[in-house]
């Protein structure tokens, strides 16, 4: 029963985000910007309140969207995990948008700036809706909102390259959503429900009796493949390099930090609440996920080494990190899921500052993304250099950073799992991928710290030059670095919360 006003917050957050999106589209850009920041902060505050309430409450809440209960009306459902991830992704969205603000204002068409903030509000709305919804079809609708809004953020840079990248992204996402929708239709056809708990009950029964075995397996694999394509898992990661490479830093950060994570989180929600973990494991989808995740972790790293363009290198590194998430999910068990979630968090707070600081490093190197031109860039913009180095250290997995805990978690999950077949490949992939990560990030860091004769650094340049949007960028770097160290040093409470959270999801 609904006992507290706090449980209404997700509804208010979603509606407020949609309202602000519509309002932003008619305002001038500076007003729209204020509305957008206000909204993101308000949603953040609401989610923090919700998290505190949920920790005290201790059980998951089902929120009826309308006057009709579960199988008839829509529903929201949340335990600890949902507000926690919502806080995190909201924070990443806010900080990335703040940090990428300067580049955005330099690149976008003047008349259209407010539309960018509309898209950010819509992304916030779809983040909230996809995390909290308890209905598979609502999930589909908001997946589409997220896709179109991402495309809008992507084309805000307005160069031919970014538009071609957006086209590629749209084609891949449309294939992904098509497969996902097909899976949803099959699932509806054999269960007759769209609400996750009802689907779950029907699926358990069908699996036990063996009725409609083939359609059920097809539905599970179509949904998994659809969401995997959209989040950029290994054989479908080609769009990432072009897209992240030609997007503005804010857009690349938002895409890698928030949007690709959303699809994985929705898949996770479906695994727990729609299929049930046992059915999902028995269907074999999990093992396929493990194989492709592991392959993605390696292939992404190897491709990253080949790049001469630093943006594309970081994009391929993203592909390898997404591979880690799927690999950890594929290991299965509670430890595997926690490791996957922690990797998701760590990547969400590490990749955006990398993209943001890269953009700054490019700016001071004649706007060239090539290693040859980036020599000494860290001396020309020291803050961006430090931020990039910290991000790279976390990616490589240095102790005290979030990336280290991730590798520890994945390794311990692999060792503790009862399926011995997965433990050794996991460890090998982890070791190899760490070495490869080190190789290409070390090379980049060495390059940007090697003094250059052609672009000498100004020795009098201050460390801190608060003009032209530097304040916002510095704020973003600092916040991301703090989060990175925070998650690295105080990982125990986070891991405990994650454990309680997935417990509430019905693990």
């Amino acid at each position, binding site marked *: 029963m*609904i006992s507290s006003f706090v449980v*209404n917050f997700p*509804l*208010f957050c979603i*509606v407020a985000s*949609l*309202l602000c*999106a*519509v309002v932003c*589209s*008619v305002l001038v850009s500076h007003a729209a910007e204020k509305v957008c920041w206000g909204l993101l902060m308000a949603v953040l505050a609401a989610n923090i309140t919700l998290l505190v309430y949920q920790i005290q409450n201790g059980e998951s809440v089902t*929120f*009826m*969207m*309308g*006057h*009709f209960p579960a*199988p*008839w*009306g*829509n529903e929201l459902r949340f335990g600890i995990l949902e507000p926690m991830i919502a806080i995190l992704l909201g924070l990443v969205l806010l900080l990335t948008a703040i940090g990428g603000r300067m580049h955005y204002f330099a690149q976008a068409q*003047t*008349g*259209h700036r407010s*539309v960018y903030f*509309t*898209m950010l509000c*819509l992304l916030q709305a779809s983040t909230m809706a996809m995390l909290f*919804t308890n*209905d598979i079809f*609502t999930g589909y609708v908001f997946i*589409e*909102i997220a896709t*179109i*809004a991402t495309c*809008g953020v992507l*084309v*805000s840079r307005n160069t031919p390259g970014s*538009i071609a990248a957006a086209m590629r992204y749209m084609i891949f996402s449309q294939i992904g959503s098509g497969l996902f929708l097909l899976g949803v239709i*099959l699932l509806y*056809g*054999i*269960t*007759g*429900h*769209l609400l996750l708990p009802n689907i779950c009950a029907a699926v358990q029964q069908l699996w036990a009796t063996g009725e*409609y075995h*083939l*359609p059920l397996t*097809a539905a599970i694999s179509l949904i998994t493949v659809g969401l995997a394509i959209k989040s950029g898992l290994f054989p479908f990661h080609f769009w990432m390099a072009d897209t992240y490479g030609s997007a503005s830093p804010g857009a690349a950060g938002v895409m890698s930090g928030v949007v690709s994570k959303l699809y994985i989180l929705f898949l996770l929600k479906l695994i727990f609440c729609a299929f049930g973990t046992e059915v999902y494991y028995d269907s074999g989808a999990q093992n396929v996920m493990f194989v492709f995740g592991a392959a993605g972790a390696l292939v992404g790293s190897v491709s990253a*080494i*080949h790049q*001469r363009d630093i943006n594309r290198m970081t994009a391929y590194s993203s592909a390898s990190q997404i591979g880690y998430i799927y690999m950890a999910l594929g290991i299965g068990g509670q430890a595997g899921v926690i490791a996957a979630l922690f990797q998701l968090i760590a990547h969400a707070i590490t990749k955006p500052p990398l993209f943001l600081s890269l953009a700054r490093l490019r700016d001071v190197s004649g706007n060239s993304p*090539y*290693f*040859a031109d980036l*020599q000494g860039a860290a001396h020309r913009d020291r803050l961006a250099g430090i931020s990039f180095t910290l991000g790279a250290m976390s990616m490589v997995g240095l102790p005290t950073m979030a990336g280290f805990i991730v590798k520890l978690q994945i390794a311990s999950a692999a060792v503790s799992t009862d399926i011995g077949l997965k433990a050794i490949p996991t460890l090998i992939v982890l070791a190899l991928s760490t070495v490869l990560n080190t190789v290409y990030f070390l*090379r980049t860091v*060495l*390059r940007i710290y090697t003094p250059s004769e052609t672009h000498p650094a100004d020795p009098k340049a201050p460390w801190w030059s608060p003009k032209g949007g530097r304040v916002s960028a510095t704020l973003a770097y600092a916040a991301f670095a703090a989060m990175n160290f925070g998650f690295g040093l105080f990982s125990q409470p986070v891991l405990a919360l994650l454990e309680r959270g997935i417990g509430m999801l019905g693990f």
Partner: protein
Amino acid sequence: MKSNETWKSWLRGDLDLTDTLPEAQMPSALEPTGTETSQTSGEEQPASMKTLERWELHLFQKLYPFFAVLMGLAIVVVLMATVFSLPRFGGEDVPANNEVAERYLADGIEETGAINFVAGMILDYRAFDTLGESHVLFTGVCAVILLLESTEEVNIFRRKKTKKRAPAPRLDLTKDPILHQAALFIVPIIFLFGIYVVFNGHLSPGGGFSGGAILGAGLIVYASAFGFEQTERFMNRKVFRMVTLCALCFYSLSKCYSFFTGANHLESFISPGTPGNIFSAGLILPLNIAVGAVVACTMYGLFSLFERGKI
């Protein structure tokens, strides 16, 4: 010694590790052809880079159709097998025909006031989906505005490329006498029909989305036959923004109220009214009108943006 040099060069960033592949591995057919060699040799980058990427691209293009057909075949085979093991088509005992559909049909009129069960379902039982759906349309049109609306400021493409070229000759329909006469006759009927469909969404087939699409089509015919100068009198960027703003805000706020009262078990002042009356079915009629306005504006806006780059 050579490997040491290569390593250093890679570390400097001006070499791709794969450059060290011996030239012999490249198929000879892929060597740069005459004109391109002269271009590449002038650049600082080693020519082998180009060949390698060309080689990769060529390999990709060779293998791609093969894999694509394979993937398509796999999907067809799996789906066909799935279709044959699905519940019997058209049967009454299919799993989808369960208590959910039954309640929508049995109690729908009482609970929502809509005689059109589909309208009752999408705008009352499962209204959250539809709320998202109307915002999908809004998101789409915003993205198209971002892409196609020409602003007075710097527009990279326009300035660089197309300014010198004459605009592509367009079929100017405003001079067409047949369209002109036909539009005079047909546009009022289209509008009337669209308004009817929107207002009777809860009583008969139709509703905001279909009615709005009809209204939008009417606007498009009108604009094609009489020119955008005529439509601009009542339909411009400002009107478009205001209609979208008001309709979507009304939609979100009213649904927020309805969700809020429903979830907290509060008394709501919205009642289904007398089923069958035009003013009945609670929020469904106003929502249909709001959606209809948004859809009509969106359809016209998309046409206008594609046609001339502004609303």
